[in-house]
C-alpha cells in the first residue's frame, strides 16, 4: 500500500455554528436544547417585561402592558405546543381533541375558585383537583381509545372534544332527557354560553423584593414562562430516560418494539395522559389569568392552531414547538387588519408544510414518504452527509496505487477461491 496521500488543500476548520447548521435538524435541536442556550433564553424571556416597563417609563411609549399580554398569550400557546409535541411528535398519536383538556383544566379550576359552586380553593389546593380531573378524563378517553389504530384514535378524540364542548354549553341548567329533568332546578354547572366569570386569581404577592410592585399581567407572564421552562426541562430529562427510548422504539418500528417486550400501550397512555394533564394545568393558569373560563376554550379551531404550531415548528422538536407558538401568536396581533384572512393563511401554510417539508422547520421526526417498507416514522440520522467537495481530492498517482494494490489483492494466489 502506498503512503497516506498528502492533502492537496489545507484542512478547513469549520466554524462551530456552521457545523451545527450543516448537521441538520437533529443537530439544531441538540444545540438549542443545551442548558447554555436554554437558560439564557428563559432568563431573557423573563426580563422582557421589565425591559418593556423601563422603556415605557423613560419615553413616551405606552405599550408595555399590551405587549406583555401578547407575550403571555404566546407563552401559554408555547406550553400547549410543547405538550402536543409530546403526544404527536414523540408518541405519534393524533389527539384531535387536545384542546378539550385545556378547557377541562380551566373549568375545573373555575369551579373550585369562583362563586359558581361557592368554593374558593387556594391554588395549592386547586392544583391537585385540576390534575385529578384532567387525568380522569384522559384515562376515560385514552384507555379504550389507544388500542385503536392511529386514524381511529383521531376520530375518537375529535368526537370527545365535540362532546365536551356540547356538554359545557348545555350544562347551565339541569339536563332534560325524554321529558325528565335530571338535577335540581337552578343547577348551573358550567355557566353555559357565558362561561364562568369572576374566577379567583391565584393569591400571590403583589410585589416582590428587588422587583417592586408586580402587576397582574406581568405576574402571569412569569408564571407561564416558568411553567414552560419546567415543562421543557421535564421533557428533556424524560426524553433521555427509559420512556423516551421506548417512544423512539415504538415510533421507529412498533412491531419490533413489541417483539422486544416494550409495552406499547403503557407508553402511549403515558404520553397521552401527560400531555393532557399539562394542557389542563395551562388551562388552570389561563382561567386565573383572565378571570374567566369560556366555552370558546373548547373550539376545534384552537386544536388546529396548536397543531400547526407543532407541525410548522417541527415534530419532535421542543424549540420547534416554541418557535411555532411565537410565529402564530404574535403576527395576528401585529396584523390586526388582516385578521379576516387568518385561517386562510394558516391552512395554506399547513398544507404547504406537509407537502413540501413535513418535518417542519426544526423537526427531527420524518413523516415523509418512506422508500423502504416497514417502520412507522423514521428518525433522521444525526450524521450529516459529508459533501464530496470536502473530501480531499484523490490524485492520479493515488488512483494508480490503489488499482495496483487492488489488483495485487485479486491476483494474490492465496486468495483464489
Amino acid at each position: 500500500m502506498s503512503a497516506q496521500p498528502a492533502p492537496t488543500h489545507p484542512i478547513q476548520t469549520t466554524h462551530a455554528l456552521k457545523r451545527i447548521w450543516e448537521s441538520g435538524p437533529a443537530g439544531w435541536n441538540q444545540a438549542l436544547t443545551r442548558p447554555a442556550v436554554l437558560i439564557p433564553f428563559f432568563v431573557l424571556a423573563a426580563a422582557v417585561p421589565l425591559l418593556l416597563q423601563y422603556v415605557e417609563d423613560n419615553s413616551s411609549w405606552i405599550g408595555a402592558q399590551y405587549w406583555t399580554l401578547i407575550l403571555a398569550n404566546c407563552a401559554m400557546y408555547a406550553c400547549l405546543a410543547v405538550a402536543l409535541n409530546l403526544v404527536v411528535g414523540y408518541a405519534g398519536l393524533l389527539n384531535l381533541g387536545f384542546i378539550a383538556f385545556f378547557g377541562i383544566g380551566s373549568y375545573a379550576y373555575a369551579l373550585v375558585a369562583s362563586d359558581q359552586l361557592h368554593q374558593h380553593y387556594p391554588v395549592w389546593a386547586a392544583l391537585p383537583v385540576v390534575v385529578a380531573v384532567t387525568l380522569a378524563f384522559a384515562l376515560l378517553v385514552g384507555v379504550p381509545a389507544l388500542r385503536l389504530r392511529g386514524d381511529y384514535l383521531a376520530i375518537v378524540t375529535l368526537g370527545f372534544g365535540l362532546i365536551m364542548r356540547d356538554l359545557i354549553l348545555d350544562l347551565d341548567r339541569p339536563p332534560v332527557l325524554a321529558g325528565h329533568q335530571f338535577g335540581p332546578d337552578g343547577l348551573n354547572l358550567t355557566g353555559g354560553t357565558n362561561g364562568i366569570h369572576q374566577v379567583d386569581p391565584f393569591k400571590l404577592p403583589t410585589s416582590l423584593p428587588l422587583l417592586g410592585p408586580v402587576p397582574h399581567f406581568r405576574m402571569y407572564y412569569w408564571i407561564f414562562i416558568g411553567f414552560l421552562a419546567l415543562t421543557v426541562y421535564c421533557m428533556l430529562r424524560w426524553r433521555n430516560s427509559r420512556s423516551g427510548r421506548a417512544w423512539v422504539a415504538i415510533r421507529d418500528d412498533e412491531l419490533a418494539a413489541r417483539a422486544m417486550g416494550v409495552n406499547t400501550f403503557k407508553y402511549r397512555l403515558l404520553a397521552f395522559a401527560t400531555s393532557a394533564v399539562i394542557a389542563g394545568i395551562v388551562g388552570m393558569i389561563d382561567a386565573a389569568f383572565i378571570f374567566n373560563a369560556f366555552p370558546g376554550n373548547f373550539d376545534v379551531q384552537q386544536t388546529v392552531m396548536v397543531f400547526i404550531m407543532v407541525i410548522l415548528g417541527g415534530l419532535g422538536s421542543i424549540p420547534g414547538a416554541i418557535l411555532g407558538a411565537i410565529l402564530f401568536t404574535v403576527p395576528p396581533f401585529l396584523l390586526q387588519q388582516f385578521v379576516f384572512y387568518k385561517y386562510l393563511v394558516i391552512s395554506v401554510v399547513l398544507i404547504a408544510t406537509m407537502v413540501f417539508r413535513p418535518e417542519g422547520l426544526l423537526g427531527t421526526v420524518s413523516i415523509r414518504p418512506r422508500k423502504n417498507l416497514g417502520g412507522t416514522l423514521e428518525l433522521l440520522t444525526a450524521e450529516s452527509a459529508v459533501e464530496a467537495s470536502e473530501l480531499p481530492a484523490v490524485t492520479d498517482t493515488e488512483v494508480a496505487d490503489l488499482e495496483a494494490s487492488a489488483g495485487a489483492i485479486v491476483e494474490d494466489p492465496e486468495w483464489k477461491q
Partner: protein
Amino acid sequence: MSIFLQQLINGLELGSLYALVALGYTLIYGILEMLNFAHGDVYMVGAFLAAGVAAFFVHNEVAAIPAGLVVGLMVVVAMGGAGLLGVGIERIAYRPLRNANRLAPLITAIGVSLFLESAVQVWVSPAPVLVPSNALVPQTVLHFGTLTTPLTGLSLFVVAIALMVALDAFVFRTRFGSAMRATAQDREAATFMGIDVDRVILVTFFVASALAGMAGVLFGLWHATADFFMGYLLGIKAFTAAVIGGIGNIRGAMIGGMLLGVLESLAGGFISTQFQDTFVFLALITVLLIRPQGLFGQPLTDRA
C-alpha cells in the same frame, strides 16, 4: 305513534344525505386507507356551485329556461365541479404523501378542510346564501294522514337510493369496479395485475366527490340554503355513519348513513334536541370501542 313515524321520515331523509357523503368517505378509505377530512367541505362546495347556477338563472331570467333544465345544469355543474375539486385535492395534497406515515395525509386533510371553509367564507360569502328552490322545484307538501314531507325531501330520499344502487352496480358488476376492489384489497398486487392504480384512485376520488356534490344539490333544493360551515358537522356525522357501517364497505356506508339519520332524529325528538349531536358522537365512540370494524366491516388486524 305518528310522531314516531314522522321522526322516522325525517331521519330517513336526513340519513339519505349522510349516506351519500358517507359513501365518499368509505370509497376513499377503502382505496387509500386515509380519512379524507376535507370530504364534507367538498359537499359544501357542491352546494355552493349549485346555488351559484341557480341564482344566475333565476335572477337573470335568461330566456325563460325551463326549471327542469336549470336543475339538470345544477346537477352537472355541482357533480362535475365537486369531482374535479376532489381530484385536484388528491393530486396536490395527498398524492405526494401517498407512501408516508398515516398521520401525514390526515394532517394535510385537516389543512385542506380548513382552507376550503376559509376560502368560501372570505371570497364567496360569510353569511348563508339562498338557493332559490321555489322557482326551480315544486314546493308541494305531501300528506300521508298526519305525516308530512316536502316533495323535495322525498326526492332526496329516492334519488339517493337510486345513486346508491347505481354505485353498487358500478363497483360490483363492472370491470372497472373490480379494478377498484382489487386496488382496495392490495394496492401493490393490483399493480402487478396490470391495473393502473393511479387512474383507479383518480376515478375513485372523482366518483366520491361527485356523490358529495350531488348531495349538496339535493340539500340546496330541499332546504334552500348553503353556508360555508355546512360541511363541517355533516362531514363528521357522515364519517360516523361510514364507520358504523364499516369503513371501506360500500353497503355498510349506505345502511350506516340511513341508520345514523334515524338515530339522530329519534334521539332528538324523544330524548332531547339539545344533546342530539352528543348522541351521534357517543354512538361513534361506542361503535369504535365495541366493534371497531363496524356493522359490516372485516375484523381489523392489529396493525400499527
